[in-house]
């Protein structure tokens, strides 16, 4: 694996514990994850799974009860490490007394960048998030979508090595979502690690390399999108030409046969798949493609979370 950017080992977070307040609420229960350089990492989970708590621990906004967490090999909360992180929180509230440009300038300076750098960086970033025209207005005059866009810009103002996005497409229209996807893609291309926390599973499926699914403070599954979306055992055959009477030729091999305009779909075991291919070839039918059908991320997620005992 490439250089480890985020390293979390057996982290636990209990809210409200103590002698007087009793056992408290366990928001994180022994979480361990590692994220390498250049990865787009998705953190999924139902409400109350502990996703935001984990992010806040990484940023030093909340203290862990036990375990170890590091960013760039430094303890979380370390100013040097945070200098390399950009963060867009969920439901963020940017300083209302500033204009978009002022906010980017001040946050850039807080991240140690000089004015010369910011003079070049701000216009290109505003262009990127589509906020060039509204940047001179006060933030309190922005719509929710505009606030989200300028929020995204502030997370990237200092060209961080790790960008943490908590619900980045919240309140953004479809065009804006596509722009966010493009931004994430650009970040990935320049080697930036992106940590995404989102409810929009289709977005995550489209842009993430690796995903962790959490529930009740624990990790349920972790892996690539392919690993998290198992095969269903159903195969789609694309044929040339698609002859009539296909059902009588291969239908008896498996189950749930479904004819398609240019082929068919069928539930098959591995042995049945070989037999099916043999029969089609013997009948001199050209096979243009065979696709193993998978669950999409949403289906996999729901299946996984439902298995969790209440």
């Amino acid at each position, binding site marked *: 694996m490439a250089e480890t950017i985020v390293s979390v080992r057996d982290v636990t977070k209990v809210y409200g514990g103590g002698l007087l307040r009793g056992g408290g609420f366990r928001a994180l229960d022994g979480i361990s994850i590692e994220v390498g350089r250049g990865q787009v990492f998705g953190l999924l989970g139902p409400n109350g799974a502990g996703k935001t708590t984990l992010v806040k621990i990484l940023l030093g906004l*909340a203290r862990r009860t036990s375990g170890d967490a590091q960013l760039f090999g430094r303890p979380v909360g370390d100013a040097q490490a*945070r*200098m390399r992180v950009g963060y867009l*929180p969920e*439901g963020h509230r*940017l*300083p209302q*007394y500033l204009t978009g440009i002022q906010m980017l300038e*001040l946050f850039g300076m807080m991240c140690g960048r000089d004015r010369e750098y910011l003079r070049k960086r701000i216009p290109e970033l505003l262009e990127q998030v589509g906020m060039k025209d509204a940047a001179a207005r*006060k933030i309190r005059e922005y719509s929710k979508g505009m606030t989200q866009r300028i929020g995204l810009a502030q997370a990237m103002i200092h060209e961080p090595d790790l960008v943490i996005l908590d619900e980045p497409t919240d309140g953004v229209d479809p065009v804006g979502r596509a722009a966010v996807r493009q931004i994430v893609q650009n970040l990935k291309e320049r080697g930036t690690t992106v940590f995404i926390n989102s409810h929009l599973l289709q977005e995550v499926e489209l842009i993430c390399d690796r995903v962790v699914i959490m529930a009740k403070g624990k990790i349920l599954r972790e892996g690539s999108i392919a690993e998290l979306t198992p095969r269903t055992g159903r195969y789609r055959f694309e044929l040339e030409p698609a002859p009539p009477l296909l059902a009588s030729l291969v239908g008896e091999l498996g189950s749930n046969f479904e004819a398609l305009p240019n082929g068919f779909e069928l539930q098959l075991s591995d042995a049945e798949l070989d037999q099916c291919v043999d029969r089609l070839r013997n009948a001199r039918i050209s096979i243009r493609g065979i696709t193993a059908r998978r669950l999409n991320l949403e289906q996999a997620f729901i299946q996984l979370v439902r298995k969790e005992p209440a």
Partner: protein
Amino acid sequence: MNRFTLKGLFLDALYQVLDNLGFRILLILFLVPVAMSFLVSFGEQEVSFLWAWDLRYVDLIPDGFGSGSGGAMPNPGEYQLPPGFRDSLLQTIATTLIDQVADKFGLVFGIAAISFYVPQMLERGAADVVFSKPVSRMALFLSRYVAGLIFVGVLALVLVGGTSLGLAVSSQYFDPGLLWSIVTLVYGFAIFHAISCTIGVFTRNSIASILLTLVFMPVNCGLHKGWESIVASERQEADYYARHPDKTPAIEEDSAAYATLRTGLTVYHVLAPKSRDATRIAQGWRKGFEPIAEFRDEDLGLEVLEPPAGFRREPRSSFEGDGLEWLAAVPEGSGEARWTLRSQDMEVIGTRSSLVKKLRKELSVDPVRSDISGRYTDRFEWVEDRGGEKRLRRRWVFQINSRILTLDYDAEATWARTPEQETAAQKFVASIQIEDALAQQMSQADYDSFFGWTAPWQFNAWFSVGTTIAFIVAVLALGIAKLKRIDF
């Protein structure tokens, strides 16, 4: 944290202040007196509006301010106000602006306008953005504190600096001491703003922060006043028994409740911020406030506030020599009436009682007990036949420290006994003030009179400033410690 970070934090504080509605309202309000100070020119005898419209002070005060008679001015067209009137007037205006408008109204309004800075920073969503930046929580907290100081500093600079400049340009009046008020206004505000910020961290609620700070202001002031009163009354008691050793009571233990109260208030006075001292320090740096007195003797603390109505002081007369003389032309008789105020050393003239005894023998008149500014005074009254003219004579004898003072009145009897002259005479006698007597009547003045840079520690300005700054630092440290422990 590099210099860009620091600059960013400062700019953030500045932008926050400039966007504040309360700041804008106060700025506009404060610009009014500043503009007035440029547009109105105060001369020695007249005030000029917009460099064109001149009005004499005496025309503005139809009652005859300064004439001493309380009635119509004898000849207002020729009346000249005493020197120093204009400076005293400007001093009064500046003091009212700074000590009343800025220090009281401005302080309360300022606290109300910026107490939300810290709670707003800690709101969900806002805190996540700000505290995820590579800036320590302490720096962010202090930047909000500094924002408040900038708020008040700019307003104080505009009000005090602007008004001083205006008075210098239009009236050629400049008191460098006034400019120190910029520092003391910020200093006074720094105390309550520290409390407001720390309460903001603990409650994370703007309303609670404002209300608790506004409650703290009078409570703090009241507790210090309580301590000042106890110290003043104890000092007065000690002074009294020092003067009257025969009346000294047997030593009694203080009651437990009183002792506890006294200890509690003393501890509070030592530890708590002494916000009212900011005004005292500022007043000390300004030009001394000189009430317009007809005559003043610093050593004896004696002041004659106004001359006898219709009389003029004889310029060559001397208080220590043959006495200060006020003369008036009288239509009847010899044509002259005279007041004389004279101070003589007890070593030369003898004690007050021996002088009274001597006068009683010489004049064959018994004195009447009277008082001047609370001092025990013997008053003699007799009629003298001078060349066929009946003269009314009165003499007051009283003592200040080792000096025996006599006040003499000599006038044609019929004229002197007219109701108008009797009233004028009474008013003149009442205008003689002795400072020590005033101070003893007002316990509040006790702390003020002791307060200074070289005073004993309880009244010492360095001690006051030092303990107040220590309090501010402690309160801010408490806020920072709490902020560091918050899980957002």
